[in-house]
């Protein structure tokens, strides 16, 4: 699962202006591997983008990766 984590971080880091404040938490539920991405409050807009365009692009790439087992990946951007 480190692969997935690294992928998300590689995608997100250059998009934000406070790369050191990017945090990614992984939890496992019945159906999903849940990735909770939290960024600096100023950067939330950057990872979501106009009409969620950036968030959608990130999700498309992340979800395109094959995961072993029946569980799927879910990426949530944590909004405070």
């Amino acid at each position: 699962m480190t692969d997935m984590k690294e992928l998300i971080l590689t995608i997100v880091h250059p998009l934000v202006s406070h790369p050191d404040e990017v945090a990614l938490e992984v939890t496992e539920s019945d159906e999903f591997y849940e990735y909770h991405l939290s960024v600096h409050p100023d950067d939330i807009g950057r990872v979501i983008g106009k009409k969620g365009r950036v968030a959608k692009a990130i999700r498309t790439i992340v979800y395109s990766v094959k995961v072993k087992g029946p569980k799927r990946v879910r990426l949530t951007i944590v909004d405070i």
Partner: protein
Amino acid sequence: MDRYTAKAPTVEEAINKGLRALGIGKEEASIEIIEEGKKGFLGIGQKDAIVRVRSRVAEKLPEDVFHEPESEPNKDKEEPLAGEASVDSTSQQAVEEEITTEEAAEEEQKGSSKNDEQAIAYVADYLTNVATKLAGKATVEAERQHKQVIFHIQSEKAGVIIGKHGKVLNALQSLAQVLLHRYGKTKMVAIVNAGDYRERREEILRKLAERTASQVRQTNQPVFLEPMPAFERKIIHFYLSENEWVATHSEGKEPHRYLVVEPTDKQI
């Protein structure tokens, strides 16, 4: 140190930052605004303000520094603040914030080409990193044609990078676009290609356009195509614009906008 280039969200903050760094008061400094910040919307289009603060006590430069050739040696001094062109000027009598339009234009010109190249290199690097994470091994080549920048991703597992119907490739393209706009000064269009996908896709779209047009002519009924991204619809619009028997337009909202091919009134 007698000068300092500061970057902050607003001009005011940048000036204060510069003054603090030099440890001088506002009266003792001459301030030059290099770039006024932009607030942007939801963090998009946001740009930090950049000001150059200079201590006037330490500044005893002759007046004609202004007319010196532009290849000033003090370039290296500013290198850390990437992308800022270093056209120097001694606005000695500068009362406070001063910016001459002439200077700004010059600055812009010199800065933009250098800055654009950096932005392109940065985005190419970004795509390499992401593609490597996706497909194991990948290289990215950037090619600039005026306002268009094409990033060619080469990888053995191109399929992974393209995705179903080019979904992943299009996602990479929109991310590249966002970054290119953020770091580049001129507005450039990012195109991300893997292998010969875009060329192949164009060929497919051309055939689809032809097939659809003849179908419309035969049945005299409009045909609704699958939703596709704007630049792909554009290709079909373009091909069918030469066909006088059919008319095209798009309906629906992004990202589910689709193209409609209808018969024109020109029927025999």
